[in-house]
């Protein structure tokens, strides 16, 4: 497929991405109100959200990013399956929980997936899981029945998370684009690391851990599962032998430091796309950059609302794409 038109459009939009300088201005703003207004001046939100409506405000930005990508690609988003699957599983998780708790709110669905959130909800309500795409149907049935019979929300999440990771891994393998392949691999690998650490901290047994981990190329899940069943030190020792040796220091600090390490790694991987004009890479990079930007703004706004010192907010921040 030809991406020259789409990349030129996205290139124009990159100008409005928040730079490190703007982020610094946001951190230095005197109050949450001033920070929020500064973002509005930059064109964030739809102008209808109140300052208390942060999640809606950020959701508008996420939708704007998806909308411009969709238009640029002439509504053919098949090359971005790896991201759409993530949204599908987010919606599926929400739909199963809505049906289980009988509290339906379709506004919680992410708009951009391979199937509408409302259709997923109806499939779950009618227990017609065959109506779901192949990559979701089996896991949806298993997760729904698990939640129904055990009321264990965590187990339900684990089933869906693993299915999501498998779908992302397969979409990455199918893709011809190197950046999408890298993104899929990094997503699965980093999720495996997080799962292993969480399982270690909660003392899960090796069978449970093996079930929760998803196959990927850069991590041997059997070895990681054995390490996670053993000790945190064993996880660190194993990771030092992989491509993710840099994660150890972050993990030793905190889980949020690991998230930050991973986000920065991803930004480093996508940065060369600023100079690529012909593949889907810059479009993928734009989506990830906007996601990173929204995450960063959420951290700043949350820091401002809680009146955290500037330095404390700064420590949590990610690197920016531009």
């Amino acid at each position: 497929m030809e991406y020259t038109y789409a990349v030129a459009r996205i290139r124009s939009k990159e100008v409005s991405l928040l730079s490190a300088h703007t982020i610094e201005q946001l951190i230095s703003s005197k109050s949450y109100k001033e920070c929020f207004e500064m973002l509005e001046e930059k064109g964030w939100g739809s102008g209808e959200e109140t300052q208390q409506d942060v999640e809606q405000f950020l959701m508008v930005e996420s939708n704007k990013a998806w909308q411009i990508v969709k238009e640029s690609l002439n509504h053919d988003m098949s090359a971005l399956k790896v991201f759409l699957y993530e949204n599908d599983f987010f919606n599926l998780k929400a739909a199963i929980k809505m049906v289980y708790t009988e509290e339906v709110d379709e506004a919680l669905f992410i708009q951009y997936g391979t199937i509408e959130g409302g259709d997923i909800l109806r499939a779950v309500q009618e227990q017609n899981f065959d109506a779901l795409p192949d990559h979701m149907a089996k896991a949806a049935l298993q997760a729904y029945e698990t939640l129904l019979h055990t009321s264990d929300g965590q187990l339900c999440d684990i089933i869906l998370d693993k299915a999501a990771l498998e779908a992302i891994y397969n979409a990455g393998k199918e893709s011809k684009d190197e950046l999408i392949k890298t993104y899929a691999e990094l997503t699965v690998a980093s999720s495996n690391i997080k799962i292993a650490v969480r399982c270690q901290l909660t003392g899960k047994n090796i069978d449970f851990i093996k079930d929760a981990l998803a196959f990927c190329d850069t991590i041997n899940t059997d070895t990681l599962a054995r390490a996670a069943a053993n000790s945190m030190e064993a996880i660190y020792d194993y990771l030092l032998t992989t491509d993710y040796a840099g994660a150890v220091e972050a993990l030793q600090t905190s889980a949020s430091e690991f998230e930050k390490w991973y986000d920065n790694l991803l930004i480093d991987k996508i940065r060369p796309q600023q100079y690529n004009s012909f593949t889907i890479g810059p479009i993928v990079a734009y989506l990830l950059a906007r996601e990173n930007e929204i995450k960063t703004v959420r951290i700043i706004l949350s820091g401002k609302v809680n009146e955290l010192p500037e330095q404390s907010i700064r420590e949590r921040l990610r690197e920016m794409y531009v």
Partner: protein
Amino acid sequence: MENLGIVYALIGAALASLGAGTGSAIGVGLAGRAAAGLTTEQPNQFAKALILQLLPGTQGIYGLLIAFLVLAKIGLLSGGTAAVSAESGLLLLAACLPIAVVGLTSGIAQGKTSVASIGLIAKTPEQFGKSMIFPAMVETYAILALLVSILAVNAIVV
């Protein structure tokens, strides 16, 4: 075959316009897609984008020029045909090859460079002058090939 010289010369003229014309069509097409993308988001950049889109279009003109020179040389433009030996015809064909081949490759390369330059002005419109230089550098080689083809065609006596 009596008219073999004319056939060789015509093949040369055809190759010159085909090769260089195809190079330009691909180059202008590529740059046009990028220009459309930029203009969608920044309509005020239309003129700059159009200039960058047109830069790979010159190869097609060079090919046409050489084709004209060859056709004039063999008398086709004046209604008749000159007596062209097979040897002269082959020489004319060889003279057309530089612009045919370099026109094709440089047209595509220049189109890609124009696309990159359109990306450059999408982010920094004030750098338009510099953005023109990069695709213009590719033009150098199309001009060199054009020169060789002109000199060679002119030097051949039919």
